[in-house]
């Protein structure tokens, strides 16, 4: 074929050059995906062999089992609550911070670095610092027989303003308090990436739009809502979509604050998430259930992303 880019005689060369990448992708990405689907539908499978006395068979048994687990429903609920709480708030906060950073001339660069620091810091380490901020480390997670200590910087601040100490994450803490801590931590952790993207977008906006708006006497509020936000809408949509995808994969942040128990000492697993459920199933040598849960998670993310794309088609300009 004269007009093909690669001459048919030398096509094997092209394949040869691509081979390292293709082999790695096939082994570590494509095959695991196919195998996940296979295992999700393979019943009675546990660590390369059938569960004692039973035989393999294909079916939707794993899915049914997973959905019937109270733990799974709990994980799903936690994940969705955290997503809905954190993605909009962190996006709006990031947008406001980015706009402010963009308008600061003095020390602007230094502040940008400060806001980017969480991104390059280990989330487990940040989680431990947050845990220390919300409840003192003394009797770390607390046990039945210890007096629960409610201290930490946050409680000190609440006390300073005349409030009562709140048991945020220790033994006997409430679900609402736990979720609040998680939401604050996840939002804070998600900010830098979003700020970075939005700030980049802001800096590429032509200054003349703002000059034009100025000549026309546009109020700051209107400049923000009618010019800045629409011009940033492609970046905002990107940040929201990746935010939701990241949110549904939330796991390390919870380990960071609650440790591997994924909840306060009296209620382990209370704050477990979808990914946590998958890890647990794998740890229990139940690859079928893990695969089924992974596929369900994949399905949810796919649907949410499609909805996001559909919304942004209407909302994202040009």
């Amino acid at each position, binding site marked *: 074929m004269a007009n093909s880019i690669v001459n048919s005689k030398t096509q094997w060369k092209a394949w040869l050059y691509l081979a390292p990448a293709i082999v790695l992708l096939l082994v570590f990405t494509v095959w695991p995906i196919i195998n996940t689907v296979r295992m999700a539908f393979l019943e009675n499978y546990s660590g390369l062999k059938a569960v004692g006395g039973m035989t393999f068979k294909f079916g939707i048994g794993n899915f049914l089992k997973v959905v019937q687990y109270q733990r799974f429903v709990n994980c799903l609920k936690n994940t969705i609550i955290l997503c809905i709480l954190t993605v909009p708030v962190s996006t709006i906060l990031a947008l406001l911070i980015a706009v402010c950073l963009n308008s600061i001339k003095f020390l602007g660069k230094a502040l940008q670095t400060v806001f980017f620091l969480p991104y390059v810091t280990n989330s487990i380490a940040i989680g431990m610092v947050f845990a220390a901020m919300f409840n003192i480390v003394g009797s770390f997670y607390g046990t039945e027989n210890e007096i629960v200590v409610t201290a930490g910087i946050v409680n000190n601040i609440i006390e300073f303003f005349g409030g009562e100490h709140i048991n945020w994450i220790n033994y006997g803490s409430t679900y609402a308090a736990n979720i609040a801590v998680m939401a604050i931590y996840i939002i804070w952790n998600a900010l830098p990436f979003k700020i970075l993207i939005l700030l980049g977008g802001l800096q590429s906006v032509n200054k*003349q739009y703002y000059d034009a708006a*100025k000549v026309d006497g546009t109020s700051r509020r209107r400049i923000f809502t*009618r010019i800045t936000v629409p011009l940033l809408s492609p970046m905002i949509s990107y940040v929201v979509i990746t935010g939701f995808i990241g949110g549904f994969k939330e796991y390390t942040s919870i380990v960071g604050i609650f440790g591997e128990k994924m909840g306060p000492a009296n209620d382990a697993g209370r704050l477990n998430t979808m990914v946590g459920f998958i890890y647990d199933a794998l740890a229990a040598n139940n690859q079928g259930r893990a695969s089924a849960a992974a596929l369900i998670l994949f399905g949810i993310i796919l649907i949410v992303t499609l909805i996001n794309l559909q919304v942004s088609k209407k909302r994202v300009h040009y």
Partner: protein
Amino acid sequence: MEVVLKDLTKIFPSRNKKSSEEVVAVNKVNITIPDGKLIGLLGPSGCGKSTTLYMISGLQKPSGGQIFFGEDDVTELSPEHRGVGLVFQNYALYPHLTVKQNILFPLQNLKGEDKLSKEEMLARAYEVAKLVQIDDLMNRKPSELSGGQQQRVAIARALVKMPRVLLLDEPLSNLDARLRLQTREEIRRIQKATKITTVFVTHDQEEALSISDYIVVMKLGVVQQIGKPQAVYDSPENLFVAKFLGTPPINVLNGRVQNETLYIGFDAVLKTPGVKDQDVYVGVRPEGFVLAEDGALTCKLNAVEVMGRDVSVVCTNEASVNPVIRAIINAENTIDEEKETVRFNLKANKTFIFNKETEERIFF
């Protein structure tokens, strides 16, 4: 609205902190722009014309001097309180809004007493859209418009709030040659229809000469000459203005005045009554040459370029500052290309002499 610029100065601080070198972008500019006229600010890039325009708009603060709109001193006013309409070089149309929304945008900003009802706003928008002939494009996005149409939308957006002064920054530079011709007529027509005092900036002399009531020629932040386009072309006040205006450009030669006669080389070319003996620059417009058998100025003939209506004679003379002299003569004149030399007489009204040091015009 008459616009008066009084000693207007803009100094940009040096970017490098160590050197205290400031850039004087605009230096004591005094211009009076009569009400309802179209003024072209003309000059090479870096001459301060855009800075002057942005100071009139209020987007840049002057370092010194004053700006008056009629009786009002607007020097300290922010752009939105000046009542100016500004058309940017690249139009700065909001890409996410339709043409209609773009035009409505300035009206929706109005507050308090000036606030308009929805119907009034729409009526105004359609009125100005009709004026610039884009009323059938109102629901398009800017990206769906041609350059010329975008230009009109930008003008409509600037006009819709009925500004006291309309400012255009290089309005034609983003258009192709044919559209440029059309659009400049259009700008002229719109300006005549609205009678709004209009200032536009350009580096293209043809553009400025063709549509302005007055042109202001600037160089390095200093106004060189102000006047009607033809008057400035016919009677430049210094060598810079003479060189800047006119295509093909003016021919500059070294000359000498002796006994009230202008010499180029050893050729006595013109009588210059009342001019002292001195070395001068001689500027001769291409159309200032008259072919003559016994002409006063003798040049070596290089080439003859026939371009339909005109014939352009390219020749050389040792006194010429430029590599060649270009004379434009009527096509009815026949010229033998085989000849070694060509002789011209110079038209006195197309020949200017300038002081060698100051480059100021010497009138005779």
